[in-house]
Structure formats: C-alpha cells, structure tokens
C-alpha cells in the first residue's frame, strides 16, 4: 500500500508540475470568458448597411416598410450618433410594366455588382386571405433573393414587418382597429412554480418560482463540469502508460511493484489531480456565484453526489484508458484504439437534453442506469427536481460500482501482459484474451 501511495504521489506531482496542467487549468475559464466576450462583441458589431430593393406589387406595403426601416435605423443609433446595429436602407423599385423575370434579372445583376444586398418581392395577392381550408403553401408568399443565405437579420426583420403590415391591412379591411386587435391578441404570461407544502406553523407555503436558470442551466452545468474534469484527466493516463511502455520504464517499475499496484497508484494520482481541479473550479464557481448574487441557486445537496460520481467516473474511465495505453506500443496507435472508448465516454452527452426535458421517462431511466452513463446522466437526473426514485439511484450506483471494479480488475490484467509487450499493438481481441487468461 505504501508503494501505491508513492506512485500516486509521483503521478500527482508529475501531472501538476507539467505545463499541460497549468494550461488546462487556465484554458477552461479562459475559453469560456473568451467565447462569451467574443460572442457579445460580435453580436453588437453588426453595424453594416444593408441596402435592399423592395418590389411591391400590392402598392401599399412598401411605404410601411420604408417607415419601419427608418424607425429601426433610428433605434440602432445612440443619441450621440454611434451605430449599434445593422442599418436597413430600402430602395423601392416600381414594378413597372416589364416582365417580372426581367426585373429580377436586372436587380440580381445589381446585387452581383454590390449595389444591393438583397431583393424582396411582395406578391400582388399578399392582401388576400387564403381560403380557410387551403394548405399553408397555397397562400401568398414573400420572395427574398440574396447572395448571402446565412445572413438572418434582414430577412427576419422583413418577414416580421411585412407580416405586420399585411395583417394590419387585412384587419382594417374587416373593420377592426389594428392596434386594438394586436393588444387583444397579446399572449398571457405564465409563471412556473414548484409545489406547495404545509409549513411547521400549519400554513400552506408560498410556491417557489422556478426560473429557467435553476431548472435547466445548473443541472446541465454540473454535468458538463463533471464531463470536462473526467476528460481532462482520464485520457492523460493513456499517455503516461504509453510513455512508460515506450521508454521501458515499465520494466524498472515492474521490478519493484506489481502491475496492479502500479495501476492503483496511477488511478489514485489521477483522482487527486482531478479533485484538485474540481476544487479549484467549483470553488471558483461558488466565489463567482457569491459575487453575482446567485448564491441561492446553488444546490448544496448536489456537491456530495458530484464528488461521488466524479470519483466513479475517473476510476472507471481511467482504468479503461490505462488498459488501452498498455495495449498500444506507440502514441499514434492509440488514436484508433481510443475511438470506442471515447464513444462510450461521450454518448451520454448526446442524450442529456432528452433526459433533462423528460427526466422520468422510460428512456431517461434506462440510459441513466447504464453503468457507463450513470455518472453523468444520474447526476443530471438527481440535479433536476424532484429527482429520481431512491431505488433507481441505488441500482444505478451499484451497477456503476460493479462496472468500476470490473474495469479496474480487467485493466490490471491487461497491464500485466501489455506493459512488457513491445513492437506490436494489441487489438481488443488480444486484450480480451489477456483478461481471460488464467
């Protein structure tokens, strides 16, 4: 046991002292703030002028759009005259008498020359209401022509404003007041709340308002943090085993300790590194939450679960990566060998949204009890109130523990044979044989 500790300490020291650790430590928060910063910067930085042609065959929508563009442009400009959003510059093109195709072609040529950004055509029957039994595609449709199909701001704005203009006309035609009608059609907002209980004083409690951040973001954040921590440390074990193998350190080590002791030491070192990282991230997160007055959002009961599932996941996936490292004789061989392991480690992430939206469905119950996914998805389900029934948690935890022990045992067997194997990378069949060998 003392030797296991010695190995764990050396592994921990090596990992913490490496440049990769420092970079990894800073990379996550830096990337997150960086992405946030860039996004908020670019979101506001679309201050381009979008000149577009309006071909209005109704004769009434174009003036409304021109006025709406004026209002829009004024709103996208500060009092000091600084532009804060895209400027929409409409150019009304009278349809005239020429054929629509000719007009489209000449306007398209102007777009190609860069004089215009886009063209919108409002069909003559835009004011007509479709027959009640007609399908949607039978009704009148706006036509928008552009070279930049991914640019959303202008077509979105056009659709909204043109729809409103057309709706106003249709309502007026029916004799209704458009402004009044719009007010009448305003949707009723809804508050989402938890259940009420009888308090100790015998009163019925106030229901707590459930906000989206708490219901969704916190569980998701917790799960993704777990995933990030596991992925930042478990694959490192693969590299460290391959290094020991290729530089023949394994031979020296096996002259002093058994393969199993070596593996336990490595796993313990890895757990220590991850716990350090977790403490830094969670601690930092709590600090930020306290600063930003989000302290009420934190589910303290989740912390022990987080630590528990983190441990399970590190040991389970760590053992898996150690075994793969022992089977490889070069780092580049590891690429192919890692694929199945990565798929196992990542697939819970693809399911997280379905599980979060419907945490007690059959599918959510099943996948969260699949041992490879339990650390992530069971944590997610526990984080979402009211949480899964106790028996499901117990079954899932027992399953994950059993798998973890099996992985450690199997990885120990693979390591014993694989460490001294040189020159040839074993495949999964060889590994199975090593595990089953007497």
């Amino acid at each position, binding site marked *: 046991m003392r030797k296991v500790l010695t190995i764990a300490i050396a592994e921990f020291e090596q990992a913490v002292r490496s440049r990769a650790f420092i970079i990894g430590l800073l990379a996550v928060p830096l990337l997150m703030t960086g992405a946030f910063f860039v996004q908020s910067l670019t979101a506001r930085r679309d201050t381009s002028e979008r000149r577009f042609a309006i071909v209005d065959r109704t004769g009434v929508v174009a003036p409304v759009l021109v006025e709406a563009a004026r209002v829009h442009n004024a709103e996208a400009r500060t009092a000091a005259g600084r532009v804060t959003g895209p400027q929409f510059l409409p150019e009304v093109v009278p349809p005239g008498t020429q054929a629509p195709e000719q007009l489209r072609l000449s306007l398209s040529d102007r777009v190609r020359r860069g004089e215009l950004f886009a063209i919108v055509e409002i069909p003559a029957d835009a004011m007509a209401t479709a027959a009640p039994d007609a399908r949607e595609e039978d009704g009148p449709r706006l036509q928008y022509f552009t070279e930049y199909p991914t640019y959303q701001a202008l077509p979105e704005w056009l659709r909204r404003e043109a729809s409103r203009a057309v709706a106003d006309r249709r309502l007026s035609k029916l004799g209704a007041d458009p402004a009044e009608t719009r007010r009448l059609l305003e949707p009723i907002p809804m508050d989402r709340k938890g259940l009420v209980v009888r308090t100790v004083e015998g009163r019925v409690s106030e229901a707590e308002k459930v906000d989206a951040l708490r219901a969704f973001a916190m569980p998701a954040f917790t799960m993704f943090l777990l995933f990030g921590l596991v992925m930042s440390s478990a694959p490192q074990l693969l590299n460290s085993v391959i290094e020991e193998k290729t530089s*023949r350190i394994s031979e020296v080590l096996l002259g002093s300790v058994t393969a199993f002791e070596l593996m336990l030491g490595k796993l313990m070192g890895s757990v220590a590194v991850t716990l350090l990282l977790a403490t830094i991230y969670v601690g930092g997160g709590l600090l930020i939450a306290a600063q930003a007055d989000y302290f009420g959002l934190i589910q303290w009961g989740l912390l022990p679960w987080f630590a528990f599932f983190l441990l399970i996941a590190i040991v389970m996936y760590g053992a898996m990566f150690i075994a793969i490292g022992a089977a490889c004789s070069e780092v580049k061989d590891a690429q192919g060998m890692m694929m199945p392991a990565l798929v196992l480690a990542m697939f819970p992430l693809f399911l997280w949204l379905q599980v979060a939206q419907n945490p007690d469905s059959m599918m959510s119950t099943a996948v969260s009890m699949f041992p490879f996914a339990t650390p992530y998805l069971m944590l997610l389900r526990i984080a979402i109130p009211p949480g899964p029934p106790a028996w499901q948690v117990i079954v899932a935890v027992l399953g994950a523990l059993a798998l973890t022990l099996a992985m450690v045992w199997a990885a120990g067997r693979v390591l014993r044979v694989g460490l001294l194997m040189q020159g040839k990378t074993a495949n999964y069949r060889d590994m199975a044989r090593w595990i089953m060998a007497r």
Partner: protein
Amino acid sequence: MSSAIALDSVSKRFGPTTAVDALSLQVPHGTIYGFIGPNGSGKTTTLRMIMNILLPDAGSVEVLGDRSTAAARDRVGYLPEERGLYKQMPVRRLLTYYGELKGAARQDVQREADAWLSRLGLSGVADKKVQALSKGMSQKVQFIAAVVSRPDLVILDEPFSGLDPVNRDVLRDAVLELKRRGTTIVFSTHDMTMAELMCDRIFMIFKGRKVLDGSLDEIQATYGRDEVQVRVQGGGGALRDIAGVKSVVDHGNVQQVRLSVDPQVFLARLVERTAVQRFEITRPSLHDIFVEIARPTPEEDTTPAV
C-alpha cells in the same frame, strides 16, 4: 552458504519459441557473475524471471533465499537493457522515486542518491530534468537508480553498452565498489574483455540452454586446446619428431604447437633437444570460446535470422 540466486530447471516459452530451456544456475553471494550469450539467446528473459517480471512456465526461481521472488524484490536492484527513465523528472526526484518504490525510506534514498551522484560526477545535474542529460549521463543515472535502495543483489542488463572508455571505467569502478560492500552482482554483457577482467564466474547461455558456467580458469581449462607457443634454437626444424606434437604452425620467430601430451612433459623433452628461449602455455580467450560456441554451423548460416 545458500546462493543469492538459484534457478532449478527453469523454462520459459513465448508461443512456439522456447526462450529458456530447463536452465539451472547458482549464483553465490558476494560474487560478480557474468552472463554472456549471443543476441536472442535468452539472457534478458532469464534476468526478467529472476526479477519476477516474468514468471517461468516450469522450474523454480529462488532469489535471496526466497522462493516467491516477489518478497525478495525490494532487495534486488535492476538496470534494464533499454533505459527506463522519466524524461520530465528531475534527476534527484527520479532517484528518490525509484528508491522509494523499493520500500526504502526517503531520507536514506536521498542520502544514497547524493553520494552516488557526486561519486559519478553528476552532482551538477541533480536538479536537471532527465531529458537534458547526455547518453552517458543517463546511463549512469540508470545505474544509480538500480543501486540507490542499497540492494543485496544487483542485476545489470548490458550496463556498459554505449559508454565511452572513460565512463566505462567509472562505471566499472562503481560495480567493483558494490562488490567490496558485499553486494552480489549479475551482469550481462557482449564485452568479453570486460567479462574476463571483472567476473568471478561466467555463465553463457545459447539458444536457451546453459553452455558455460564456471570461473574463467575452469572454462579455459575445459576449452583449452593444449597449445603452447615456443621460441627455440633452431626454429621450427628443432620441433620435428618430438613425441606428443600434433601439429606446428610456424610463424618464423615463434611456433604455435598443438600437443597431445601434458605441456610439462613436452617441455622436458624439448629442453633435452635444444635451448628454449620462450615457452608459454596459451589459453583461449573468452572471445574465442564464445565465437567457437556461437558460430553458426554452415546450414544455419543459410537460414534467415529469427
């Protein structure tokens, strides 16, 4: 006195190849034991079985009086054939780590490591990372790693390969120093001169089997071809018709004579006949013996190397 290492009909197979075949061996305490043999003859496999890195398929391995070599492992130091050092670790930390893995206390290991580092002229690089060392330096570090826990038995697989003559001497003196402390040393080498000069006993393995085992004198006596080199008045002609002479190779000034009788008998007969200026019983060098045993037979020569 019991042996430091005792192998009893040990065999090890890898798939269809038999790497070691019914090998028995006794290494006495406090000796320097040389392992020689051509590449691929089973040296490293044997050493790994002694280290308990590999388990024999048959036979028993006893190390320092312990049958399950796992228990004795902490008292055995090992320098593997190919160097195994963490490139990113500072030298002193690495040595402490390897020593601690042998169960030694950290302070003892550190003291021992510092002593060896200064003895081998490496004090200046104690805090440098291994990757900054030259080949000779890392070889010496590897040696210290094998002995830093003060083991009773040290197994060195090719300790001198790739060293320049100066470093070779430094390492040789270090090995002799270990012997003076009473450590048993087993080393494998391709350097026959080194083996002749240093080893108390020499062991040769060829195709998994033991072909030589004994002191240099014993081996030379077995493989001695009863040859003498003489210089006599009258040259080669004076040697004609002496009883017991099988053949003569005349080099001009000296003659190489192969005998069928004891050299002393031959000397007496020679003195009767002429004046003897030089008389030397020549013994085959370890190099010659090695080559004679391991030289491929003509039919083997044509088969591709395995």
